[in-house]
C-alpha cells in the first residue's frame, strides 16, 4: 500500500533492454519537499529510472507508483502536477517560441503567465525565434521554462544543465535555489555536473550499473567520508599509516592524502600525532563523495 506522504515509490523494479539490465531490483521512496540528486556514470540507469516515474517506460517486474497511482495509469490530473525536462529536449521544431509556450500553456489550468514572462526575460528567449533554429542551450532553457511554467508539485530534471553554458548554468541554479526556497516542491535532478547539483540537493541517490548504491541525506554522506592530508613533521612519513578505515590514499615522502570512512575527527588527530604527523581534515565535495561511495 502506498503511503500517503510518498510521492514516488519504486518497489523491486526491474527493467531490461535486451541483455542489459538497466534497473536491477530498485526500491526507492521519494518524500514530498525533498530535493534529490540522482547521480551515476553513463548507463547507470538514471534516465531509465526517471522515465519510469512518468510512465514512459514500464517495468519488467516490480511496481512504480507516482502520486499515489501506478505510473502507467497516470492521467491528465496527475500529469498536471508533474514537470519533466529530459536531456534530448524534444520540442516542436516548426513552432515559434511564443507559439510553443502558448500551446503547452493551454493544457495547464495552473499556468503562471507572470512566471513565464519573467523567465522568458531572464533566459533571454526571443518569442519570435523558430524553435528548430534555437541553439542547444536555448532549447534547454525553453524546455525548463515549459516544465516549470505551471509550477508542478514534482519536477523531474534529467540532465537539465548539460547543454547550458557556465553563465546559463548559474542562472539555472539560481532559479532552482529560488524554487526551493519559495515553494514546497519536490525536485529530482539527475546530472553529471555534480558541483552544480551539490548546491541545491538535500538528498542523494547514487546509482551504478542499474542498482542504487547509496540513498541517504547529503549530510549523512558528507559525515560518513572525510579527506585527511597528513604532513610529516620530521620530513618523512612512516612506512605504514595507522588508519584502518582508509578507502583510498596517495602518498609522497612527506605527505599523504587519505579518504577515510566513518572516522572520528578527534581520533584522526590523535592517531596522526602518534606517528609524528599533522592532520588537516576537510569535508569532501560531491564529486569526491561519489567516487568514494562507489568504491
Amino acid at each position, binding site marked *: 500500500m502506498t503511503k500517503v506522504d510518498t510521492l514516488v515509490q519504486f518497489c523491486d523494479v526491474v527493467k531490461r533492454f535486451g541483455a542489459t539490465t538497466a534497473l536491477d531490483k530498485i526500491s526507492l521512496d521519494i518524500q514530498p519537499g525533498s530535493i534529490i540528486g540522482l547521480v551515476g556514470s553513463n548507463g547507470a540507469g538514471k534516465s531509465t529510472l526517471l522515465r519510469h516515474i512518468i510512465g514512459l517506460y514500464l517495468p519488467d517486474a516490480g511496481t512504480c507508483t507516482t502520486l499515489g497511482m501506478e505510473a502507467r495509469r497516470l492521467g491528465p490530473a496527475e500529469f498536471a502536477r508533474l514537470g519533466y525536462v529530459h536531456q534530448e529536449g524534444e520540442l516542436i*521544431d516548426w513552432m515559434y517560441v511564443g507559439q510553443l509556450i502558448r500551446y503547452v500553456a493551454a493544457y495547464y489550468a495552473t499556468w503562471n503567465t507572470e512566471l513565464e514572462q519573467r523567465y522568458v526575460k531572464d533566459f533571454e528567449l526571443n518569442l519570435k525565434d523558430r524553435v528548430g533554429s534555437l541553439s542547444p542551450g536555448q532549447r534547454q532553457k525553453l524546455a525548463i521554462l515549459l516544465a516549470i511554467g505551471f509550477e508542478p508539485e514534482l519536477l523531474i530534471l534529467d540532465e537539465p544543465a548539460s547543454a547550458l553554458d557556465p553563465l546559463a548554468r548559474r542562472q539555472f541554479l539560481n532559479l532552482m535555489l529560488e524554487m526551493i526556497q519559495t515553494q514546497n516542491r519536490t525536485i529530482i535532478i539527475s546530472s553529471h555536473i555534480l558541483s552544480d547539483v551539490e548546491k541545491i540537493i538535500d538528498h542523494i541517490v547514487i546509482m551504478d550499473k542499474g542498482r542504487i548504491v547509496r540513498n541517504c541525506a547529503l549530510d549523512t554522506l558528507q559525515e560518513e567520508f572525510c579527506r585527511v592530508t597528513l604532513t610529516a613533521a620530521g620530513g618523512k612519513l612512516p612506512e605504514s599509516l595507522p588508519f584502518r578505515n582508509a578507502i583510498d590514499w596517495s602518498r609522497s615522502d612527506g605527505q599523504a592524502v587519505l579518504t577515510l570512512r566513518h572516522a572520528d575527527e578527534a581520533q584522526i588527530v590523535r592517531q596522526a600525532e602518534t606517528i609524528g604527523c599533522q592532520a588537516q581534515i576537510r569535508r569532501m565535495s560531491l564529486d569526491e563523495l561519489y567516487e568514494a561511495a562507489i568504491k
Partner: protein
Amino acid sequence: MNLVTVNLSHYWKRPALILWQVLILVMLLPSIPILLEQKVNTWMTPLYWPLFWMLVMGTMTATYQLEILSKPLSYTLPGHRRIVRKLLFGFNVFGSLLCAAMVLLLYPRDITSRCCAAILVLAFGQILFWIGVWCSYRSRNQAIVGFAFPILIFGPMMMDSISIGQYWLQPMVAAVVAVLSGIVSCWAWRILGRASVFQACCGRHYLGFTGAFSAGQVKKAQREQFKAISVETDEKLSRLGRFFVEKIARNRNQPFASFIYGVMYQTLGPVALMTLKSHGTNLIFMSLVFLLFGYYGKTGNLFIWLMFIFSILGTDLQVHSTLLLTRGRMERFVSALMSLVFLTLLGLVMASVGIAATILLAPYMPTFPIRGFIAEFHALSWQSCYLFIIGAPIVALLRLLFWGKKYFMFMSIIIVSGLMGASFPLLMNIRDNLIQVNWGIIVVILILAWSTFTVYLYRVCFHKNLAIK
C-alpha cells in the same frame, strides 16, 4: 591507408549505403535485357537506360562525396578535396565508357549507327552525370534520389513519344555532342577545383542517403529547413495557432478533446508554415499528378489512392512523443486513433476535390497517340476510395510496428510497394468484381484493417515503452 581508400571505404562499410547500392542495382537491372533486345520497335529506348544509369550514378556519387566532405574531420584531411574531384571524374569516365562499350557491342544497328550511338551515350552520359552531381549539390537535406523514380517510370514512355528518327545517329551530330560534353566536363573540372564549392558544404548538415534512416539526422535537416523558411507566414500561423490553442484550453477538462486538437495542430501546423510559393508548387504538382493518372484510366484510380495511402507514412500520431503534456497513455491512445480517422477523412476530402476536377475537365482534355496507343483522358472515380480507407490504418500500423527501426520500416515499405505492384492485375480484377458483386468483403477487410491497427495501438499505448532507450 591512403586517402582514396579511406574515401571509398564508406561505400562498403556503411550498411545503409550498401542497401541503397543494392536497390539502385536492382532498379537498373532491367536495362540490360532491354539493351540486348534485338527486336526493338523504337531506337531510343535501348539508349535511354545507359543514360538514365549515368544520371543516377552522378547523383549517388556526388551525394556520397558531399556527405563525406560535410564532416569537418573529413574535409580537413590534406588533399581530400582534390581526391573528391578526381573520384567524381573517375566514376564518370568509368561509367560512361562502360555504357558506351555496351552500346557499341550490343546495339542492334549497322556499325556506323552503333559508333554514333556509342559516342552519343558516352557524351550525353557525361553531361547527365554532371547534371546528377549538380542536383545533389543544390538539394542539400532532400531525398534527392527520389527524383530518379519518376524518370525511371515515365522516361521510356516520353522517349518513345519523341519521333526524331535517325537524325541523331549521324557522325556530325555525335561529334557536336561530344564537343559539348567536353566543354561541360572542363567546366565541371574547373568548378570542382574551387575551394569555395566544398567550403560551402563543410560543417553544414547534409542528410545524404544514410541520414534519411536516422531520426536524429532527419530532425537536424528539418531544423535547417525551418531556419530557411521566411517569416511571411507568421500571421497565418498565428491564426491557426490561436484557433487550436483556444480549442485546447476550452476543452482542457474534457477527457480527450484537447489532445485530439493538439495532434491536429501538430499535423496541420507545418502545412500552414509553407510559403505561398510552396503551396503553389504543391498545387501544380498535384494537378499534374491527377491529370497524368486521368490518362492512365482504371490504373490511375488505384494509383491516386495509393499515393494518399503513402502520405499517411509522413504523419506522426504523437504516440511516442516525449514532450510531457498532461496526456496519459489513455489520452495518447484515443488522440492517435481519432487523429488517424481525421487524417483519413481529410485525405478523402482532398482526393474528392481532385477527382471532381478531373470530372469537370474530362470533356475538354485532348487525346494523343503514345507507344502505338491512343491516350485518352478518363475522369477519375471515387469508387476505389475503400483502398485508402483500408490502406491508411495498414500504413499507420507499419509505422507503429517499425517505430525506431528505420531500416525495417524502409524495407517493409519496399516490400509492400512491390507486393502492390506485383498484385496489380489481381487488384484490378478484384476491384471490378468486388464493386459489382460483393461490397461485404470490402467491409470485412476494412473492419479487419482498422481493428488490427486499433488493437496494436492499444498494445503500444498500454504495454510498451513510449520512448527510445
